[in-house]
Structures are given as C-alpha cells and as structure tokens.
C-alpha cells in the first residue's frame, strides 16, 4: 500500500506539530490543547493499528473463556442461555471487527446479568468470583498495555510491549 498508513500518520503529526501548532496564538488555548491531544492519539494509533482486529479478537476469546469457566458453576436458571450464548459467540468470524464488537456486547451483557444475579437474588458461586477476578486481571493488563502511551498509568514502566502481549 503506497502511501502506507504509517507514513500518512507521520505526515499528519508533522503537519500538526510544525505548521498548525506554531500558527496558534497563546490565546487559542482550547485549540492548542486539542491539537496536542490529536498528536498524542495519532502517535498511539500508529503503535496500535496493525494489531487492532487481533487485539479485539483476543479480548473476545478471553470473554468466551470466562463464560466457559463460569458455565459449570452458574445457577441452573442461566445454564441453557449461557450455553447457547457461548455457541453463538464461537461461530463469530474473528477477523470481522464489527461482528466481534457486536458479539462482545451480546455475551458480555449475559455475563453481567449472571454476575448481578437478578440484583442479588441469585447467589454467585465462589468459583465464578475467582474466574471473573482472574479474567479482570489478565484483561486489564492487556488494555493497560494497549493504552500505555497516554502516560496516565502510574505503573507503565512495568508493562510489556504491545507486541509481547499479542504474542501471548
């Protein structure tokens, strides 16, 4: 692909840094703030775009794995619905980003319902508590790595690279 996505992102960043920002007067505070954030987002997107579909598919597979781990311990009233939801999720094509995002909402919604247990009326087995915590730990590490370039994570220096996370 010519020009490549990387080259176009680099061009936009250069234009913003070297032409747009210097043209703004000190008074244009909102514009300056937003241009700087545009640059930050673009630099982050440059690190992420190659992995975007694979990253979202990885999140989806982790969610399916959580659902499967919950399956033996869920209340009987959820068992059939969860089984069907897992089967539906597994049929989704991993490379179709829109389909994956849609499926995350569908399966995630059911997982939420099970966790809330009809607002506390259905008990949650200890195995499910642990499964969710374990999933939360792995998923938060992936997402912190994905967005480490914001500089907002106080422990960003301890995070692996995106490539390392994707290598799994």
């Amino acid at each position, binding site marked *: 692909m010519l020009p490549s996505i990387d080259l176009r992102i680099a061009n936009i960043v250069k234009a913003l840094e070297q032409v747009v920002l210097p043209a703004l007067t000190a008074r244009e505070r909102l514009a300056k703030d937003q241009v700087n954030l545009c640059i930050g987002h673009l630099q982050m997107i440059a690190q992420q775009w190659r992995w975007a579909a694979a990253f979202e598919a990885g999140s989806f597979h982790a969610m399916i794995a959580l659902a499967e781990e919950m399956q033996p311990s869920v209340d009987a009233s959820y068992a059939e619905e969860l089984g069907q939801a897992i089967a539906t999720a597994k049929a989704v094509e991993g490379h179709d980003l829109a389909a994956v995002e849609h499926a995350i909402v569908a399966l995630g919604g059911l997982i939420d319902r099970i966790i809330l247990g009809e607002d506390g009326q259905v008990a949650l087995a200890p195995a499910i508590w642990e499964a*969710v915590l374990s999933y939360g*730990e792995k998923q938060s590490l992936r997402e912190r790595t994905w967005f480490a370039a914001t500089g907002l994570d106080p422990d960003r220096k301890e995070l692996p690279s995106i490539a390392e996370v994707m290598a799994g």
Partner: protein
Amino acid sequence: MAIDMSEIGEAPPVDRVDIWNREDMEPRIREILDRTVRDRVKGPYAAKTDMEVVAMLERYFARTEGLESIRISGVSRMAGGASKEQFAFTLQHEGDPAGERLVLRMDPLEAISQTCRGREAQVHIAFADILPVAPVRSIDADGEILGQPAIILGFVNGVTEPSEGKGHGVSGIGTRYDDWAAKLAPQFVDTLAQVHRFDWRSADLSYFAAPEAGTRQAPIWQVNWWSQVWWDGVVQPVAMVTYAERWLRENAPVCDAPVMCHSDLRLGNFMFEEPSGKFTAVLDWELAHIGDFHEDIAWAIQRLFGTWTDDGTFLVCGLIARDEFLSAYEVASGNQIDPVKLHYYEVLNAYKCAVIDLGQAMRAATESNNHQDIILTWLGSAGAVFLEQLVMLIRKA
C-alpha cells in the same frame, strides 16, 4: 469450630437499608441523572465561541439583574475543563464602569461527570468563611436563562501547578510539586480536615440530602449513583465493573457519622499563589456530598493522583508520604481512620473512576456531546488502570 447455621439464619440485619434498592439515592442526584438521559439525544454539542459566550452573558445579566449598558470583554477560555466549559470575562455596566473579573463555569451537553451547579453554588457559599473558595456571583442551576446550567464565580488568582514545575498532565495528573510540597502539604491536610469538621446541619444545603447515620445508606447511595451512571451510559460491558458493583453492595460498611465530603480533593484541584504557596482557592466541588470521611481519604491516596520521589517513595497527591498523610489527617480532623472502611472506599473510588472513564466519558464522546470529546477518549484510555486496581483491592479485602 463448627458454625451453627441456624444462628446465622436468625442473625438480625445490619440495618434496614436494602442494598439492592437502586432507587435509594439523593433526590437531586436522581434528577441530574434522569436529565442526562433525557437530554442526551439533543446533541451533538460544539464548543462555545467567544461571541456566543458574550451574547449569552449579556442576555443573562440584563434579565437576572436588570443591568444596563452591559459590556462583556476579555473573554478567555480557561485551561483544563475536562468536565465544564470555563471562561474568564469582565463584566462592566452602567453601575460599575470599572467592571469585575468573573468566571463562567458552564455544563456542556454531557460531561465526564454529570453534576449539579446548584449544589456546587451552595457548597461554595457554605464554605466562604472557612476555606479559600471562589465567591458565587450568580447561579442558573437548571440553565433556564443561559440555556445550559452554569455558575458564575468571582475570579481568583493563583496557579494549580508550579509555573516552573517539571511534571504537567491532563487534569493535573502527574504534576510534581517538588520543593513546593513542604508549603502545600499542611494546607492540603488542613483543608480535608476543615471540610470534614464542617457543620452541614446548620448550612443552607437544600440541594443536598444526608444519609442516615449508623447505617449503610451513605455507601449505598454512592453505589446507586455511580451504578446508575454506568447502566445509563454503558457502551460495552465490562465484567469487572459489574463484579465490583455487587461486591460494593454486599460489603458496604456502616457510616457512623456522615460528614461533608469534597469528593475530588487531589492535585490539580487547589490553587495557590507564588511564591508564598498560600492556598487561594479550593476547586471543583461538583462531586461534593454528605457521606463517609473515609471516601475523601481513599480518593486522595489513589495511585493515579500521586507521584514518586527519586528514591521511590509514593507521595499522596504529589505532596506527602502516605503514612505521614494518614497520621497528619487524624491529628488535624480528630477522626480515627478505620483501615477496613478505608479499604472499602478505595474499592468504591476505583469503581467510580472506572465508571467515569469507561462509562460516562465513553458515552458522552460517542454521542459527540462534549466540547472536548478528544479529552474524554484520552482519559477513557486510563480506565483499565482502575480495573486493575479493582482486582488488586478486592483480592486484598
């Protein structure tokens, strides 16, 4: 030792608070959250231009105060503002040709946190003689005249971070105070103590309601507030957020004596003058409510709001070592910190931050309803930091 299950079955309830009654929250908070959902479809929202602000203010002062020959000048958008649109301006009129410098703090259609300008005004007025706060000039709590809710404050001089400082970041995060910390830390601790010692029962706080002392209503009101924000705006399900909600309901502690909580007192939310370091204003009272003092302490000690010294010591809000902070607060306030309650509120605050970053910010940006959508998606990127905190804190509980 064997547990007699019959004794557990007959154990009296902690109190009569229904931890799953989602309707149990401050009435004004309910109004604000309902208004958010109702108005969400009115977007997208665009940042106000200086000319629009001038026109709005001229109309406003003519109508509310009957001023004549009004001149609005020196309109200048203020820095920050991840939540509200803020403009400094000068108001002149026939009765005051010299003019006064003021600040318009106005709700965009949807912000990273949806709050009430009326509550903010009342708490500014209540603390006017106690702490440095900007004086309230005018209030349009529901935007009936300006078109969007707003508060107009007196202009206060000062800085939120040292002019020559090394660390700067969005919303103050990452600010390094270095040598300034010695001057600022005692004032920071004293401010927290003053807020918590405040006699809210004798103040005009009609926009507020107080949870019942000696019950779990204080934390449950907070869980109901923020879970409502989450479910009203959720863009994508996050199992850890849902899990935390259940944990917070089932582990809510009794609040013995509700106090006024600032709820966002951290680095970036106080102003000081240079070179004295004296506080000139305590800022951003929009999340203030009556609740458990542990909530404010747990908020201040969050890792995201702290910095590390070169030798690796964590400084609460970039100012003071954690243990030193907790001890100094106990001395200044007379309150004894309960480590179990402090831990609960650390979980609650991580939950609130996750809801704000991954829920409300994402919804507002998705609807294009903010003047700085790009800041919302930037801050939303920090959501996973709080998910990791939730895992760690709940495991430790």
